[in-house]
């Protein structure tokens, strides 16, 4: 049981980078970007192929990040300059990346089991694994926070928040969108590269459902931990990714569920996390409206009695 839980935390931390990427598009740019299903695989593919060809795992991981940036930039260009609907631009890139990934890999699955990866150094020492991952993920989170508070980062946030305003202040919202989608997919590919190295293989189908996993992390995190500031929101996304993995690990302990039920579990978690706050808010709003109306009515009646 404990092993299952530490495994869930490790995986949650590795997926947190991907979730931060999804947070950039989904929450900051208000752009549900499906490219991530492809770029996640791209990250794993680039890292695996370079490592098996003898490149250092660090270089391979960096290249995976850069390839993710490039893939995201393509989606951003399609959307911002080609004026293609955001969802469609993402789907087109996702499909295109499937072929590209298969070309890169040459076969549907590459094993990394007998090669050195980024994690080889700490693979004998599992106790050090989680602290190292926490440090890496926190560093990425803090860097992203800092970026989102620079002049450029503010313009990026405003592009999703009020594009008309930031254009009138002189920022090119097309460039901001391309930059944001690019950065997002860079992080997703980085996550894919790390998970391929941790798991010991890259697989052509590994990216399927990445967007839903990312959304689940973002939404679960926000629902549990809140998102008032950028600092808080990115922390919530990281913790949401871990929380999601823990929920999932616990769900798998139920005998009725198989590993293949992951997708529907994810869908149900996302649906619950989306629907419950909406229902709660509307109920609270209704109760508030009723109470205020009764108060005002009461006041009017009292006043009417006096005059």
């Amino acid at each position, binding site marked *: 049981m404990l092993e299952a839980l530490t495994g869930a935390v490790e995986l949650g931390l590795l997926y947190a980078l991907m979730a931060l990427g999804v947070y950039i598009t989904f929450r900051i740019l208000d752009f549900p970007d499906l490219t991530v299903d492809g770029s996640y695989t791209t990250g794993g593919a680039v890292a695996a192929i370079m490592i098996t060809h003898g490149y250092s795992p660090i270089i391979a991981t960096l290249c995976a990040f850069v390839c993710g940036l490039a893939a995201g930039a393509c989606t951003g260009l399609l959307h911002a300059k080609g004026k293609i609907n955001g969802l469609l631009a993402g789907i087109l890139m996702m499909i295109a990346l499937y072929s590209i990934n298969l070309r890169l890999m040459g076969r549907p699955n590459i094993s990394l089991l007998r090669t050195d990866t980024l994690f080889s150094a700490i693979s004998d020492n599992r106790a050090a694994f989680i602290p190292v991952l926490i440090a890496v993920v926190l560093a990425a989170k803090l860097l992203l926070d800092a970026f989102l508070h*620079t002049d*450029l980062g503010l313009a990026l946030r405003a592009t999703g928040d*009020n594009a008309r*305003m930031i254009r*009138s*202040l*002189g920022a*090119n919202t097309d460039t901001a969108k391309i930059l944001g989608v690019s950065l997002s997919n860079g992080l997703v590919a980085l996550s894919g590269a790390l998970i391929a190295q941790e798991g010991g293989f890259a697989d052509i189908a590994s990216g399927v459902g990445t967007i839903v996993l990312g959304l689940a992390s973002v939404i679960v995190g926000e629902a549990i931990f809140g998102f008032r500031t950028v600092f808080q929101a990115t922390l919530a996304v990281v913790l949401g990714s871990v929380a999601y993995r823990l929920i999932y690990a616990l769900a798998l302990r139920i005998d009725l569920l198989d590993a293949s039920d992951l997708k529907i579990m994810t869908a149900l978690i996302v649906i619950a996390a989306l629907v419950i706050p909406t229902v709660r808010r509307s109920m609270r709003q209704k109760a508030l409206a009723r109470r205020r109306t009764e108060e005002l009515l009461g006041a009017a009646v009292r006043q009417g009695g006096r005059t």
Partner: protein
Amino acid sequence: MLEIDHASKLFNPGTPDEKVALMNVRLKLNPGDFVTVIGSNGAGKSTLMNIISGVMKPDIGEVRIGGNAIQELPEHARSRWIGRVFQDPMAGTAPTMSIEENLAMAYRRGEKRGLGRGVNASRRKLFREQLSRLGIGLEERLGAKAGLLSGGERQALSLLMATFTQPRILLLDEHTAALDPARAALITSLTEEIVRETKLTTLMVTHNMEQAIRLGNRLIMMDKGRIILDVPESRKSSLTVPQLLGEFERISGSALSDDRIVLG
């Protein structure tokens, strides 16, 4: 300062809904001019604002600022010269970002945005000073989200964001129309004060006839995409609302029809 030279703009060209938005408009604003713009619905007032700011490009004609033709530049490339406040209080600020972050974005108006911190100590000091000029206590709420402000507070913030970096031209597009009378009066007096202090060349669309006469040094009236009346400072001071309405009927041949008009 600002010249519009024979500018025309057609909406939905070649369709049954084709509409003349601007027809051969000529307008020249001198530095420091404060021009109020009135006119019926669909007279072209907003289109005029839009072709100046770059939201739209004129089909033919030129827009010049300081002698340079800018009609082909996109909106973001013109913003260094043009500050703008919209009618909708939601439009001028980013609601999920704080007051100081909104000001930081305005602070970089028209400049390259890099990896420097958006809000640092010296900028924060400047923002606090500037906000205190508004006199509504926003300087104590630098970290508050703009979305939590009332409509009047947001328009005041938008007005500051549009002006404190000293662009050359200020465009006010009915920026008090969505506010209740008390807040509208506050924003109007802030506008007067800021324009007087910064000496910005200003173009203000309004539905309030009394305001159009009282504010500024020049008044233009638009109808069906044309400027039909241009009242200079000398005549404007003695102008009354009934005179203005009479003038409109005389020139356009119909009564001024504006469902939101406020006679003052």
